[in-house]
């Protein structure tokens, strides 16, 4: 019993550590991932299948003729992992291999551009009329020159939205 008491402060400290780590900002499970395009892009709605084609280079041009330029936050971001899994059915490594193989087979496809942050995704999409990207819903406010698109007819804030972390 004496030994147990002697560990009490340590246990309390560990508990505090766990609480503190748990309280830090991190990816919120279930948070929507908003798909964004340049505000000049007339597209308002995309299907999951469309998204997959756009990000994997199967569809290289919008209906307006502009080249599709996908942008993603760098590997390691939780929204990227969730997006790739839900939309493309791939991990980051799978996608790397996919584009390696696509280039190797002579397909004229370009992998998504990697940028460092959600803010960079938004600024890249705003700067390029053919760009498309995605950000967490909590990172979406404040974007200028961009707009959100519906996925399978559903807004990111509505029930039934499919792309969530």
């Amino acid at each position, binding site marked *: 019993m004496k030994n147990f008491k002697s560990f009490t402060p340590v246990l309390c400290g560990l508990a505090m550590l766990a609480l503190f780590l748990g309280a830090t900002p991190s990816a919120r499970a279930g948070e*929507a991932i908003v798909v964004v395009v340049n505000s000049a892009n007339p597209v308002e709605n995309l299907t999951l299948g469309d998204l997959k084609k756009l990000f994997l280079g199967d569809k290289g041009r919008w209906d307006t003729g502009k080249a599709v330029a996908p942008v993603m936050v760098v590997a390691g971001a939780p929204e990227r992992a969730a997006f790739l899994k839900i939309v493309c059915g791939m991990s980051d490594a799978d996608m790397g291999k996919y584009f390696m193989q696509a280039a*190797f087979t*002579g397909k004229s496809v370009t992998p998504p551009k990697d940028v460092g942050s959600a803010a960079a995704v938004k600024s890249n999409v705003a700067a390029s009329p053919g760009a498309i990207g995605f950000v967490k819903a909590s990172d979406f406010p404040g974007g200028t020159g961009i*707009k*959100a698109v519906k996925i399978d007819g559903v807004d990111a804030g509505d029930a039934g939205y499919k792309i969530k972390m």
Partner: protein
Amino acid sequence: MQTGFAGLTVRVSPAICFALCVLLTLSAHAQQSPSTPMTADEVNRQLLQRVIDLEAKVKQLEEKQTGPAVIPLAAAATPVAPAPVVPALETPEVEPPTVNEVAPRLKLVVFGDVGAQGYTHVPDTFEFGSLDLFMRARLSEKVSVLGEVLFTAESDNSISADVERLLLIYRQSDYFTASIGRMHTWVGYYNTAFNKGEFLETTTDRPFMYAFDDEGGVLPMQDVGVNVTGKIPSGKLGLNYVIEAGNGRDWYPSDEPAQNNQDRNNSKAINGGLFMRPDRFSGLQLGFSIRHDNLTVPGPAVGETIVTAHAVFVNSTWEILNEAAFVRHSEATGELAETSAFYTQFSRRFRAYRPYFRYQYFNAPSDDPVYINASSNTDVPLNITSFVGRFNGPSVGLRWDFTEHSALKLQYDRFSLRGLDSENGLTSQVAFTF
């Protein structure tokens, strides 16, 4: 509380210990690796300076921006304040990540493989597989170039260099992409899906029917000519077309199979194919191709027609490949020689491991007027001097991706050969890319 270390005993009160833990936790979390401890005033001063810097940058950016329009944000979680729109640029940013960038335009990927193998009737050996330099450069938004130089070990143990592919590619749209140069033909699925990089293949080798022509294979896997491909507007059916015209294959035994510089005849090999990737079944591809060429061989000219069909399903977990080919050689005298071949391959990924199974079959008549000219095949046991005859059997193996860019493969083969003893073989291969 008493705590001891190497004979030293110190009394520490529980409250102090608890406070220390909390303090350590907070400080470790607030600053990943501070070199020197800072006071609260110093921290505040630094933060204030950063805010001032950021405000200055925002002001600079706002001064550069024009256009007061406010963009509706359909799915915003919270209302967005009006803000100027960043002017859209005419040139989209489509540069890929700077991976292996050896020049502003040129991207280089290297594939390699080494291994060991042992067959029943062949001495066990270590082997140098290949070193493959793959280059790609985007010359403009619509024009790119692809080059591939391959170093492989020959049957006399020398290592030779081969320009495997050299293509100038023009992509007008999703519906029209044209390329010209030395290419891998669109005969079947495997030849264009995997090309030379063994790292990308699940197995240690290509299916027997798709062995490269300069390694003794029978189907024309390489050609010099033009290729046009693209989508066919077909909605969710996902139809695509391929049309090729090239010099075709040379079957003179001492000649290079690909007619790189001079065709032996005026007749060009024509190949056409259709395949579909339906939206409803992501990963599924069904297709066929038909190729015709007039071959100049030792002896009378021979007409060659090759029909292939494939049904494949590939995603990040499953790989199911099924392909069949039918080859007809017709002589002016009306004599026909028909060859049939197929393979089926299954694999499933379990994390870094991918066990696989393949069964393949190839059967060519012994009096085929073309295949009697085939050179020895380096992809199969050396006692097979040509493809003439029947060849069939299973292969089982395991691929282990021990890093993201390297894989170890172990494969067991058992082949039955018409008129010859069966072969059992064990092959190991380390394939990598960098």
